């Protein structure tokens, strides 16, 4: 658990996105903690991340990414991606485009394994899936 004052770290596997996200979080804080963006983090530092974003243009190949996700299993680190089917492959949240809008798909098995608690507001908005299953809303 992050100590207060320690930054909230976004780790991003996608250069274009990392730049945009850095711009977006500049000056932002979460519960008094600054938000920082780490571009292409080293694997040995991944446990320091609070949120890992696997972009659509991630330089990680599918095998390497699957390996990373496996290693993160049970860690309280939120994994997010806009890759199709990410939540079904062990990731927690996929951001999909649905009828022209961004829509979150949450794998509740994955978030529960990590003991992450998701706000009621987000759960209501999202499509909920389980490992290897279709979504419910």
């Amino acid at each position: 658990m992050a100590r207060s004052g320690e930054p909230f770290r976004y780790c991003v596997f996608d250069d274009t996105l990392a730049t945009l996200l850095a711009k977006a979080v500049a000056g932002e804080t979460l519960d008094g903690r600054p938000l920082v963006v780490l571009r292409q983090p080293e694997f040995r530092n991944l446990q320091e991340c609070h949120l890992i974003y696997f972009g659509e243009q991630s330089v990680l190949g599918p095998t390497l990414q699957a390996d990373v996700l496996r290693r993160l299993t049970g860690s309280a680190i939120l994994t997010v991606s806009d890759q199709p089917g990410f939540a079904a492959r062990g990731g927690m949240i996929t951001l999909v485009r649905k009828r022209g809008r961004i829509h979150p798909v949450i794998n509740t098995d994955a978030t529960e394994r990590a003991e992450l608690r998701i706000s009621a507001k987000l759960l209501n908005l999202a499509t909920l899936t389980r490992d290897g299953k279709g979504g419910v809303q």
Partner: protein
Amino acid sequence: MSKPLAKRSLRTRPLLLAALASAALPVFADDSLSTLKQMSLDALADLRVSTATHRSERLEDTAAAIHVITAEDIRRSGATSLPELLRTVPGLNVARISATEWAVSARGFNNQFANKLLVMVDGRSVYTPFFSGVLWDELNLVMQDIERVEIVRGPGGSTWGANAVNGVINVITRHAEDTQGTLLSVVAGDLQSELVLRNGFKAGETGHARVWAKIHQNDRLARASTDDSEDIRWRGGRAGFRGDWEVGGGTLMLEGESFRELKREERAYSGAHLLGQWSQTRGEARDEVRAYVNRFTLDHWRVLNNGARAELDTFDLSYRHHFSPVGRHNLIAGIGYRNIASDAVMTPPAGVSRSSRTDQLFSAFAEDTLALAERLQLTVGVKVEHNEFTGVEWQPSARMRWTPVKGNTLWASVARAVRTPSIIEDSARLSSYIPPRAFTGGLPLFITSHGNPNLQAERLVAYEVGYRAQVTPRLSFDATVFLNDYDRLLTVDMIGAPRLVPGLPSPYLTWNAQAGNALRGTARGFELSMDYRPADTWRLQASYSHLDMNLSTEPGNTEINPLRAAGESPTHQATLIARHDLRHDLELDLQARYVSALSTYAIPDYLTADLRLGWRATSRLDLSFNGRNLIGPARKEFGTNLVNASDAYLIPREYYVTANLRF
């Protein structure tokens, strides 16, 4: 084994930023970044991120007094019915009459048979041409399947046609893709219970569908006067479906429903509808075709204590086309046809002179939005209709919108709207009994009022000015001032003098009356509202509405109670909504409202509040604990008849629990 990790709650903000970065940011300019970052999660989810041009402008940008209730608002309101949800909308008059009946209107003229508010569900009119009005208890929606409710105060005749006089309510149900999986929902309380089961699934390669069923029961309420405590217990069941498909470059939506509502085991509503809608966007042009059939049966129904049975079969077909913009012009045009075959029987001495009839309605409309300058737009529109009661009716409107600074909109409009007569006003004979009173000379009085086939449409010319300001992404204001000028409003004109009939056991009086158009007057007022999110976990909404009605009849008119309508809607109304997220899984919602006195029914002003505690027990199960009308004792909110004002139901404090399980 689970690792000894501390549980963490994920607040929505980190994800929100990630979502922005992934999809929204490339589309938006840098200067809108700070705005986007402060948007709420549901607003962000509703944001269109595709770069394709969308002609449909945001409703919030139109030059009219518009209020939108989102699915999230509905969930947090805890409302189990549409009228209940409308209680907190600025400018609407909502009063509960009994366990089953409501009076709902906008900007005055409220009544159980309020006839100046047009209500639609997915474009299907639920306004009943039998008596002009909405049977709110027939409209028993699955609240979880509502995507949004759009409320327009003020006339909408130039777009929606007749009877959109004081306002329009459009309920839009959720796309089938948004209701996938299985939902089991339960409401259990001291006065109501409900069970909803819904299943959503993929329907073919390009589509989604849902099927649903709902049963409910509402318990009886007590009357204010003790002589008759018999309210109606109300039970009902309904089932339906909705499917959405991508077909041939367009979208197809089909929905249907069948229902039966039973009151005191004999009074029943039943009905069914089937609706199809097809739309296609080509470049910047868009076509929309909608068709529906609707069957509605009222059995052992009572209108002013006269028994009635009516069957209405409606067929409606409409087409609208959004043209590609030409120069500064942005044109929408459409045509429509409606056929209503009805069969009505009333219990003698009441009756309907044309018991079987077919009424056809032809309509056409056009609306042009003209960019006068970069920040100044003029929209002129007109709807022409031909109806069987009053012939051709024109409903024009002109609306001007000025956006001096981004996020600030000043608008003004002038519009004409009409309400066309109902079947009852046209051709029914109603009988009402007034017990011996001083003004009847101590004798019982029977009034027989006759419909009038020569009635004219009620007419309104409305003037409105409004201002909307998005001060910051977290703070907005809305203010509207209106002046409604009515004429040819409906009256019940007494004919001659009462006649003494030497009957047994005692003599009595009879008096004839006929429907007329002799009332006129104005309604003036203003509505103020504010929406403020001081923090991600807080939202505050407040509103105040003021209404001042001034009615008079034409000289020599013999209507007994011409000023009744002025005392049926409150002069002052105020609402306060506070929503707070106590924890990631706990929500606290307060809704308070003040309603000033209704002189027609001698109902004093009141202040009351509703509370909701929502708990997301697991990611698949949410529970809520609700209390309604928590301030003060049970009270009357509206009257049931004009003769005996105390003859009204008491709306008590109420508690209920809701549970929604998704699997």
